[in-house]
């Protein structure tokens, strides 16, 4: 029973708890906040795996930027209180249950085959993992090996941004 395992179990409880809270709270703002907590907890898992850069990006991009935009939309539309209407997407709950069962089945199958030895080891102390997760190695991999996908992604984002600007532009100026 080492410190890392205890911390992992605590964080895992928080992560699962916040995910459940996100699903079951009736107020959309509370749901969004539970999701922020969940993202922050996942960032801690990245730290445990020796990937500090990914952890910080997770907090900055997901917990920081994207969820703030979610909150914006919820608050501006005044959509925080959910109406008691399951008629909007009637096929959703059965599909959710089916997919959850499939997901748990896949995980169960993996451990059925691999046993407890299949658990990934804690990597924070591992030198190779630490070097791989450093900002330098991520930068080199991203800008040398995967430079084309990186450029295409950034181009897509740029197109999306220009599209948003064009859509919201004032008509009178033309």
């Amino acid at each position, binding site marked *: 029973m080492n410190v890392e395992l205890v911390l992992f179990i605590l964080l895992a409880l928080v992560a699962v708890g916040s995910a459940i809270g996100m699903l079951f709270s009736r107020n959309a703002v509370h749901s969004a906040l539970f999701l922020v907590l969940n993202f922050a907890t996942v960032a801690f898992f990245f730290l445990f795996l020796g990937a500090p850069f990914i952890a910080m990006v997770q*907090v900055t991009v997901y917990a*920081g930027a994207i969820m703030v935009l979610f*909150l914006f939309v919820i*608050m501006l539309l005044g959509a925080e209180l959910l109406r008691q209407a399951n008629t909007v997407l009637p096929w959703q709950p059965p599909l959710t249950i089916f997919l959850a069962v499939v997901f748990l089945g896949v995980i169960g199958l993996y451990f059925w085959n691999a046993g407890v030895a299949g658990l990934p080891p804690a990597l924070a102390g591992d030198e190779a993992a630490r070097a791989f997760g450093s900002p330098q190695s991520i930068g080199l991999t991203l800008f040398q090996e995967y430079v084309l996908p990186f450029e295409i992604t950034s181009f897509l984002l740029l197109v999306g941004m220009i599209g948003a600007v064009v859509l919201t532009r004032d008509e009178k100026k033309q």
Partner: protein
Amino acid sequence: MAMEWVRLIEWIIKAVISTAVLLAGFAYMTWAERKVAALLQQRIGPNRVGPFGLLQPVADGIKLIFKEELIPAQADKLIFLLAPVITVVPAFIILAVVPWGPPVKDFYGPGQDLPLGIANLNVGMMYILSVASIAVYGVTLGGWASNNKYATLGGLRSAAQMISYELGLGLSVVGPLMLAGSMSMLDITNAQAPVWFVFLQPLAALIFYIAALAEVNRAPFDMPEAEQELTAGYHTEYSGMKFALFFMAEYIKMIGVSAIFTTLFLGGWQGPFVYEFPWLGIVYFWGKIIASLVFMIWTRSTLPRLRYDRLMAFGWKVLLPAALVNVLVTAAALLGNQVILGAVLGALGVAVVIAIFFGLARRSRGGPAGRRARAAQSETVV
């Protein structure tokens, strides 16, 4: 094993000292703000409580503690209580990665240095940006949970402002990061041994300073607290200690961004004889922070508040492109000759800074808008 316990105690002591210094800094920033503003406006400022009004923060604190705490009837109570806490915590933890001085060599014996900073992460700058991005929540949620339209509008406004200026802020630090070749704040400070980055990256320093003012909601970007437009903004419904927490967060964030500005552009703890006497680094570090803080107070007493649409336009159409150009030029200069690097960066940066200042000056003095503004002003005076 014994050494690990010593390290643990060392971390706890450093964290406690950092928190205590920030708290004391907050208390005396409120005093300094009023004193310096008074000096600039030829007033006297607080002078009733203690010598030179030095006990004024204590009196203010006692007053705020004994004030009645109100919670609006329809407010979301949990989030209403949580919002000030969410605002204060990032303000405290953001300084964890900033070094206060160079490592004290052989402090515990041979080969056992004492680093003068809580943590030296290899992703230090990313940590600062991620903590800063979390700070938006407190303001937004505080405004929303109050169940008051003015507070909600103020919260949304300030969130939009903080997100917009985060882009300029994040891009302006890329220049120093590229010059230092590291995201660790200690490496960045070490890289400024002969020349501070403010001379190599004047444009980045200016963008960082402006964006940081917007990020901590200081004048001329104190839009979230526009009393005339929004009664008070996101903290309209807050009173007593909960209001004091928002207030505290603002001042501690001021100290925080000053410390980061110092580390990135003013050489951090660099100064004469600092490697011989590491403790001297703390003096240099805090001296530079205080200079930066006084400059912020000066800015506040000088400039009027920007209008909201102009504020957003400035952030997106001026700061962001300028920061992008700065990144591009720095990268190009780094690729080319290292010797001409300083000359190219310095000359370009100074040219752009001068151009911006002249442009602003011309707009405020001449031009139809400026003339109209002056005419309106003279009418009100008459």
